[in-house]
Every structure is written in structure tokens, then in C-alpha cells.
């Protein structure tokens, strides 16, 4: 959640400039909603319960969850207005998330 908080702090102005931030995880929506309310973020949380989308993106960490279940590989992707990938970051260590400055720079470069 630290990345979302970091992102939220800096991207709120970009949001007003019209960027859609979509946070995807297997979290059930009720939990994500609580998270969104708790963090007071303008994100759209979507639920990828069975990891179908993560799989389609090649972003599954097989057996990486605390109970040995499959979990998504943390990743951040910046798409331009045409839906084309302009920047992305996939980390090798799940404690590490892209620097919000880097994400913001990628968004501003669009």
C-alpha cells in the first residue's frame, strides 16, 4: 500500500489533469473499497479474483502468496490516451515499488 500512498500524494494533481489510476489485485472489492476510503485516494480498485487478468499480462507469481497461493507480480504500467504502453516497471522484490517520481515523469511525458 505504500506505493499507492506515495502515488496518491503526488498524482492527485495529475488526476485532476485527467489520468485514470486503476489498481488491480485479487482483493475482494469490499476490502479494496475500505482501503480506498482509508487512504482517501481517487483510485479505481478493480478485483481480479481468479488472477485471469494477471495471467493474461504474464504477471503471476506462482506460489508467491503467504499460503502458497498464486499472487500477482507487483507492476506499474503507464498507458497513453491511445491505450499504448509508454512505460512500465515490474519489480523483482515485492517490497520494492517504482518511485512515484518516475511514474509521474512517465505520465507527464505523455
Amino acid at each position, binding site marked *: *500500500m*505504500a*506505493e*499507492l500512498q*506515495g*502515488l496518491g500524494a503526488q*498524482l492527485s494533481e495529475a488526476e485532476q489533469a*485527467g*489520468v*485514470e*489510476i*486503476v*489498481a*488491480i*489485485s*485479487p482483493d475482494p*472489492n469490499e*476490502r479494496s473499497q475500505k482501503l*480506498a476510503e482509508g487512504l482517501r485516494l481517487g483510485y*479505481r*480498485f*478493480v*478485483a*481480479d479474483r481468479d488472477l485471469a*487478468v494477471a495471467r*493474461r*499480462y*504474464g*504477471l503471476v*507469481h*506462482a506460489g*508467491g502468496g503467504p499460503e502458497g497461493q498464486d*499472487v*500477482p*507480480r*507487483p*507492476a*506499474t*504500467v*503507464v*498507458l*497513453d*490516451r*491511445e*491505450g*499504448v*504502453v*509508454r512505460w*512500465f516497471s*515490474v*519489480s*523483482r*522484490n*515485492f*517490497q*520494492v*515499488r517504482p*518511485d512515484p*517520481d518516475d*511514474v509521474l515523469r512517465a505520465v507527464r511525458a505523455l
Partner: protein
Amino acid sequence: MTSSARLAALSVVVAIGAVAAYAFLLRVAAVRNHPEGYVVAFALATALAALAVIRAPARRWPAWLALGPSSLLLVGGAWFNFVVAQVPVTPTALRVGERPPDFTLPDAAGRQVSLADFRGKKPVVLVFYRGYW
């Protein structure tokens, strides 16, 4: 205070300091993105405690009291950072200059959200996260 006791105290301060710094500064990207920093700090705390044990004249318990927890933190921290937290690098469907796969997923309000909804309208930042701490 003997030099041994001082080293033991320093060891404790370094270990607690590392835990506190990482926990409280998690939102700072420079801290969060270098978790190996806490492993290094625990190694330092362990080294200081080991030095304290070596230098202890008679009563060694303050030194052992520092060595026990700091070496546990070092082993636990290193295990977590270099083993548990590792994410295997496998090919993804992400290519700069290409569109990623479209998807339709429900948001927290139950509305179906598609990536294609935003095409021609807004840039999108997709954040995939684990959903588990």
C-alpha cells in the same frame, strides 16, 4: 559503562533504529526501494554485539542480550529480503509501444470497468498489487 556494555547498547540502538526507520519511512521511495538497507543495519548490529561479547570482561549477559536478538533479526531479515520477497522474472505481455491485453473487471461499486473505456479519453496508470501484505 564498560566498552563492552557500550557496544551492546549501540548494537541495540542500531537494530531498533533500523526497524523503526524502515517502518516509519516506508512511504519514502528511497527507503522503501532499498530493503537491503535493513539487512545491512542488522549485520552491523550483530557485528557490534559480537564485538561486545569478545570485549566483555566478566559479566557477559548484556553482550549476549544484544547478540541474540540482533543475529535473529539478521537471519530473519536476510531470509525475508533475499528469499521470501523475491519475485521470479518471467516474460510479460508488456511492450512499450504496444497495447496490452484488454480486460473487463468489476470495481468496488460493482461497475464493470474495461481498459478500452479509456481509449481516446484518458491516459491510464495500471497498478498491479499483491493484495496481501
